[in-house]
């Protein structure tokens, strides 16, 4: 793979990261809205909640939550 091809792949990875982050946020928000009680219970018990997404389970910590709304 030469420099040009490599740079192309890296640009695709950048796009992939952006698209996945948007999709993942959407899935997490949807899950929170649909299973709010369950998420609240988990956060209360462990200071984190496990959210199933299309990319596997994502752990949402209380600290990350506070940072996101700050």
């Amino acid at each position: 793979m030469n420099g040009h091809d490599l740079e192309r792949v890296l640009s695709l990875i950048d796009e992939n990261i952006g698209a996945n982050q948007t999709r993942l946020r959407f899935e997490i928000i949807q899950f929170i809205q649909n299973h709010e009680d369950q998420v609240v219970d988990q956060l209360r018990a462990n200071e984190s909640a496990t959210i199933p997404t299309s990319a596997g389970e994502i752990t949402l910590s209380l600290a990350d939550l506070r940072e996101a709304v700050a």
Partner: protein
Amino acid sequence: MLALVVSFLVAVYLLGPNLVARFILGFIVPRKNLVQSRWEEFTRAVLWAAIPLVIAVLWAVKTGAIAKVGQVADLETVFSGLYSERYFGAHRAEFFSSLRSFFWMNLALLLPLYSLIVGVSILFNFLILHYNSIRNTLKSTQMKTLLATIVLPRVSEWHVLLSDMLLPSKNLVLTADVLTKSNTLYQGRVQDKMLNSDGSLHSVTLASPRRFLREQFQKAKDELPDTEIDDFWHNIPGNLFIVMGSDIVNLNLRYVREIAFASGSSPEEVEVLRRLLARLTESK
């Protein structure tokens, strides 16, 4: 004897620098992940040898490092002695005296040569390690391409895609959906990969692997159209699930930020999270 000495000099001056450079670069990019054609191998070897050699010679000439320890006449005496036994017999004392100078002259050249090679290789390692932050400071695509051409060795595309070497952040995890020839879909975090000597994919190791129960899902979907897909992933125990490259039909790679809300959240999303936090506070 002359052939032996010349072979040794060729090895030390032309092959050694490439070998040392490869060894040092190997700490960052494993050797098996480098894929080069024979022509690229040759060009790279010559560049790794010729350019530093020219610089080392210029440096040694300018600082007088060679002139201090020997003269051209010493080289002539040594090579003549190695070439002809008669000359060696007639100029024995002179030969050994010149041989000493010959040794120091080579050392005066080899020391800056190898210092340069080691220094540049370490610099390249540093640049590869910080490749993404350097790349992010460059605006134009041409400059980025130039950086990739100069800095990165000929890396296998699988190494770029399946390792975190060039990822912009360490908070990223790589997940993959792997469809195999037996029509089974696996998902997991890419833990490792193995490449063949030609750079092709030998195997992918997945952590937190799960298998999609396609038939059950189809059956449930037929009966109940609202069936959620998440319920049909079966967790596979273990964290070293290996899928052989020859068994893979396609791969869907996803680079996912571990902290999804680190940046770029919309006001609506922030509002949902705020409500969630408010509920937690209320209950206390």
